[in-house]
């Protein structure tokens, strides 16, 4: 494996805190917020994050594959989650301390609830609006969300990101991309 070469491209409107561990080739899109103590780890291939995503404290995003790991827009990665999906669409939520293996791809509007561990043995893509939640028997159950209320949720997500973009720079040093 070739040695890691760090190359960070951070959009001028993104908020990436100083205390974030970045390794490898990473591109962060406009309006995305990355909290302190998050980890982005591009081991083999680069990681490209779209616009208006939120990556919370302790979240770990790893690309183990050679191809580009593309993360779409408006995704939320909650505290302490670990995501290794090769591709992630738009408006997904990965809950607190949930873990997603590199054999799973997320499409759009998927929800992985808190604490769920998803390790498919072969490559799998979650359909849009899939909800994975910890069912009563302790296993991860799946269901399809009707999508009702998604506009209100998108609005909430936008406000959430907007608030963080205002508040985080007041209390944290920010990291700038190499171009800035």
């Amino acid at each position, binding site marked *: 494996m070739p040695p890691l070469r760090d190359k960070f491209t951070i959009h001028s409107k993104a908020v990436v805190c100083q205390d974030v561990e970045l390794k490898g080739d990473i591109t962060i899109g406009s309006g995305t917020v990355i909290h302190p103590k998050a980890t982005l780890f591009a081991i083999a291939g680069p990681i490209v994050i779209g616009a208006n995503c939120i990556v919370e404290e302790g979240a770990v995003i790893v690309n183990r594959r050679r191809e580009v790991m593309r993360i779409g827009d408006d995704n939320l990665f909650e505290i302490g989650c670990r995501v290794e999906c090769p591709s992630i669409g738009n408006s997904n939520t990965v809950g607190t301390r949930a873990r997603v293996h590199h054999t799973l791809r997320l499409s759009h509007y998927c*929800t992985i*609830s808190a604490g769920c561990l998803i390790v498919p043995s072969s490559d799998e893509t979650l359909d849009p609006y899939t*909800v994975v*939640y910890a*069912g*009563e*028997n302790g296993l991860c*159950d*799946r*269901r399809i*969300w*009707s999508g*009702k*209320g*998604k*506009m*209100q949720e*998108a*609005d909430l997500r*936008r*406000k959430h990101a*907007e608030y963080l973009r205002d508040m985080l720079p007041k209390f944290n040093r920010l990291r700038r991309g190499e171009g800035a």
Partner: protein
Amino acid sequence: MPSVHYYCPCLSTSPVPPPPDLESSSYSFHELHTLYFCTEPECMAIRCNRCVSVEVNGYYCPNCLFEVPSASVRAEKNRYGACARNCFQCPSCRNTLVIVASDPPEGSLSASVAAVGITGEPPYFLYCNFCRWDSTEVGITFEKATGLAGQLQKTEETAPDVVEFERLKEHFEPFLRAAPSGGIAHAHSNPITSAASSALSRDISIPGLSKYSALLAGRRGGRNDREKAGTTSKDKEELAEFRSRWETGAGASVAEGEVDWIKHLEDVGEVATIEQRWVGSWTTSMRERDLKPLRIPLHSKKTKRCPQCRHIIIKPEQKSQSVRYKMKLTASNFVPAIAISVPPPVASTKAVDPNAPVTFHAGRTYPFRLAFTNPMYEPTTVTLQVQRAPLLKGRPPFAVSLPSPPFAIAAYAEAWEYEDEDEDMADEDIDALLAGVGSPSGYTQPREVAKPKKPKTVGVLERKANTTVIGGELVIGKEGRGDAKFNLLVTHTYQAEDTAAQEGETEEKSTKTPTSRQAEVKTFSFYIVIDLGVIIPREKEESHRRDSEQMSIS
């Protein structure tokens, strides 16, 4: 694991517990933290959950903590005693549902995405934040975001199970009205069961409960009839036969339609799981998308009374938000807590699994320790007496030696009262400690049985704060087998400074201000059962050894 359980004499008339090797004896013994204590002078006894009489103190919704008045639970015939406000459970994952507004119509989508601050609009629906189930899937929407239960009631009232339940209530109503005055109680001379049935009949008009208690009462009446053949029971006459509108076998016809559906099933996720359908009282659809939101059942706070003197033992505070008690007489505040430990053999080199059952070999002697902790503010003196089990045949499988003279346990004191306690630890205590540590050396020598006991294995081993550790010895006979389990009579004597303060003792310790200094010696005895472990019989042990030898050879 060795264990100690306390005896509650409610199941028998004699104060002496049954021998511990009887299977049924375990029902009479309880863990200390589940027991209560009646402090009335005429009682002064341990009470268990099985013998106290329970009455409902108040109903509340566990979700919104709204206190539902008992009168309204009875009068309004709240459906299944469920929260009549806005509380619902997700049928899919049992999370609490929230009421949310719908998105604006799709037409305005492009415009509103740009605009920040989309506000929802009616109709409202129930939504699960966890698994994203929403009530539009089963066609339930609301015009207003308040009074959901009321809005839903209209649709629920026509459901077959609700109609049937109403009819059942109607059917049993005349019988129930007559029941508390006549019939049930007089058939039972046992005060415990009569207290229980009177507690049942007191709140008999709770819809959820009435069904069962009425059935129960009906059955009892029936049995009575058969016993006193010839005399007609009044109860029986009043209870006419109930005919269900729904034939019991009729569920099959519903299922037939589902057979077709299951034949064409592609995704197993569409079938509702047993857990999801379990709560339904009626035959429900098998389809996951037919599941209806569930009402959240009310919880109740309960008052517990002594079965003998009817004094209150447990009384929670009325407010549903509060977790405190107005009255809480638990046994752990009045009788010493006893913990047992069996020191592991020193000679063993294998790592000992703490959860593995303790085993003893026949023909050997084992030390064990009992730690007594005094919960009271008065120092107490404890005497132990092993109950001799009635011998059925042969020699007893084991013998237990415990110190026979009384020993003292210091009073309970708050943590800040223990200044410099460690420094003036008596020399004899240290000696005892050392002796206690050294004693298990006799463990590996089977000859120990014949020898006189070592002086410090049995006796007071350690005194620290309000805990006294006693050493005992288990001598297992050559033919010993079964469980090393024995009953022990514990008598503790203490000087109660002020009985009045004791009676009124609640959670607040401030009431413990002795006003009158008249010391009164009190004695309380109770039985415990000590389960030390399993005795490995001789022959089995030998086969064991042979096995292990063969193993080592091969």
